């Protein structure tokens, strides 16, 4: 089983006629995802993917006609904030935004608006969701996953593929893989995802993949201590990375000393998580649990 998406999820693709939108719509359909509609203003009434998917001008008309309960966004960065807001206003409870390069101030405004709505945002700048054997809503290569009991949550893109691949190669499988995205301001975070995995009866172990910067991993460590009963294997990318370019004094004052790989690893280990030294070791540690 899974969290967030499964074989009954009805997906609308925003930006379905673009190069990436169309390519990944086909990939998702091949995987078995229920793609019920696409949105492209000005092309409502047309069909794509050999007549399999109807296009609508607006998200609300797509929802009305098809009952879509999940949206995936492939529109360019300048239009993506609008696309997220449009999906939220159409009453879609789960919005996955793949688009990268959205300005931070745009995302702060979008998040502020979404906070007052009943909507979960995944991303932006993320690879999306994969529930192996049921549905993929995103761009994670489908063949690398396999149904199983490991929940995966990650801030990265291709590093997540690497880890999913390694887990599968070791004969294990995943309940759901969640790419929450690497932007400073994003939707669903580690905490909410860990909580969903904790409640999911089919997830027995959790893999958390973090990166240097911010303090999401430190907060996840607190959550693991306080709330989580399932075992966690973690990896933090960037142990050898050069220190980030300094953001004036304000960055140092606001972020304080948080954000280095060493601090994140220390916090996660103190919370009882097993921390892998490199990505392939994640699968070894999982197998030992």
């Amino acid at each position: 089983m899974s969290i967030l998406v499964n074989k009954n999820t009805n997906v609308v693709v925003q930006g379905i006629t673009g190069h990436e939108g169309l390519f990944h719509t086909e990939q998702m359909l091949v995987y078995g995802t229920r793609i019920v509609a696409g949105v492209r203003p000005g092309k409502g009434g047309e069909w794509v993917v050999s007549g399999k998917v109807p296009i609508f001008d607006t998200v609300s008309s797509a929802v009305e006609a098809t009952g879509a309960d999940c949206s995936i966004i492939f529109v360019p960065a300048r239009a993506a904030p609008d696309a997220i807001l449009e999906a939220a206003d159409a009453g879609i409870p789960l919005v996955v935004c793949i688009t990268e390069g959205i300005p931070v101030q745009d995302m702060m405004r979008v998040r502020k608006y979404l906070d007052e709505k009943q909507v979960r945002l995944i991303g932006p700048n993320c690879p999306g969701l994969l529930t192996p054997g049921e549905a993929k809503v995103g761009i994670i290569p489908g063949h690398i996953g396999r149904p199983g009991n490991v929940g995966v949550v990650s801030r990265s893109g291709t590093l997540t593929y690497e880890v999913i691949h390694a887990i599968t190669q070791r004969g294990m499988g995943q309940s759901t893989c969640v790419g929450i995205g690497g932007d400073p301001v994003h939707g669903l975070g580690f905490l909410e995802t860990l909580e969903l995995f904790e409640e999911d009866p089919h997830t027995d172990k959790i893999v958390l993949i973090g990166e240097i910067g911010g303090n999401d991993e430190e907060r996840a460590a607190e959550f693991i201590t306080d709330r989580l009963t399932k075992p966690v294997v973690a990896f933090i990318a960037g142990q050898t990375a050069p220190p980030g370019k300094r953001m004036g004094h304000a960055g140092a004052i606001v972020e304080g000393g948080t954000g280095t790989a060493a601090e994140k690893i220390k916090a996660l280990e103190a919370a009882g998580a097993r921390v892998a030294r490199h990505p392939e070791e994640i699968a070894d540690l999982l197998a030992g649990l």
Partner: protein
Amino acid sequence: MRLHEYQSKQIFAQNGIPIPRGRVASTAATAKEIAMELGGRVVIKAQVLVGGRGKAGGIRLARTPAEAEELATQILGMQIKGLPVRRVLVDEAAAIRSEIYLAVTNERNARRPVMVASAEGGVEIEQVAHDTPDKIVRLLVDPLLGLREYQAREIASRIELPRDHWKTFVQIARGLYQAYAACDATLAEINPLVITEDQRLIALDGKMVLDDNALSRHQDLAELRDIDEEAPVEVEARKYGLSYVAMDGDIGCMVNGAGLAMATMDIIKFNGGKPANFLDIGGGAGSDKVAAALRIILSDPGVHAILFNIFGGITRCDEVARGILAALESVETRVPMVVRLVGTNEAEGRRLLAGAKMETAATLSEAARKAVELAAQHAA
């Protein structure tokens, strides 16, 4: 993208923030003219995009135009942290009574802008924040409403600013927020905001950092980029949409995705090697981009081996392979290479590279071990 002090202060002035009278000069003669126009004492300030200018001797007080010319000559001949000083700002000198710190930046945990202020501004502000955190005032701003007047007054009150200055301070704080919002900045900072002996508030120094993702909608700001201040290799990388950071090791890395790039560097270190760089070719990179990336890696003479780690998704392994081959045609090199290709079109990618002289690896660990061995052999 960082702006120079003089650029930041011009933006501040456009948003109603008082700044000293002054102009920028690239020759000592111009600096002297500006000093004559301003009359009286002036401050000559090196315009380079690094911190610690004052401590390096890049900020000096001149009492006469002749002295201004002399100091400008000295400063224009300096290098600060490796950057040659190409311009100086000549500002009228202020008689300073006290220094305030005022900034706005993004608070990622709260997902909102935050105003940061202190009555103890100046170069030691980080020490103040560390030793006496209660002297730093922080106030979150609703990004949909912006900084309201009452909030700016609240900051003034909490840093115990004398009431006579509140009205001007509110105007400055709101101007700073407005500049931050209008320019899509990630930081707008005044340090110090001074109270002068004659009871005026002036932004003596300014710093702005802009969100690179937003520059496409700010053509005027994008043109302010000073490429003289950047390493040529970084300019080249940006031209191709590559993210490159040089390091001091000997194993060059080319990876798709920032997280995987960092993890690749980590595993090189884990196997006893040292990465020469961070390089993310991004998603969907075509062969042109890959070729440019390879040229950039090879431009570092310290590189003794190269590791390609590509996990194909949007990026196709065959495209990457073509890029590597194209680059090898135009670049003479004997640096050994290790390639690991997994994912979309991996078989085709491997087939294309079969003729080239490179090691292949099935796993990341294997690739890292081979790269470390080859680098040691090549360096010997």
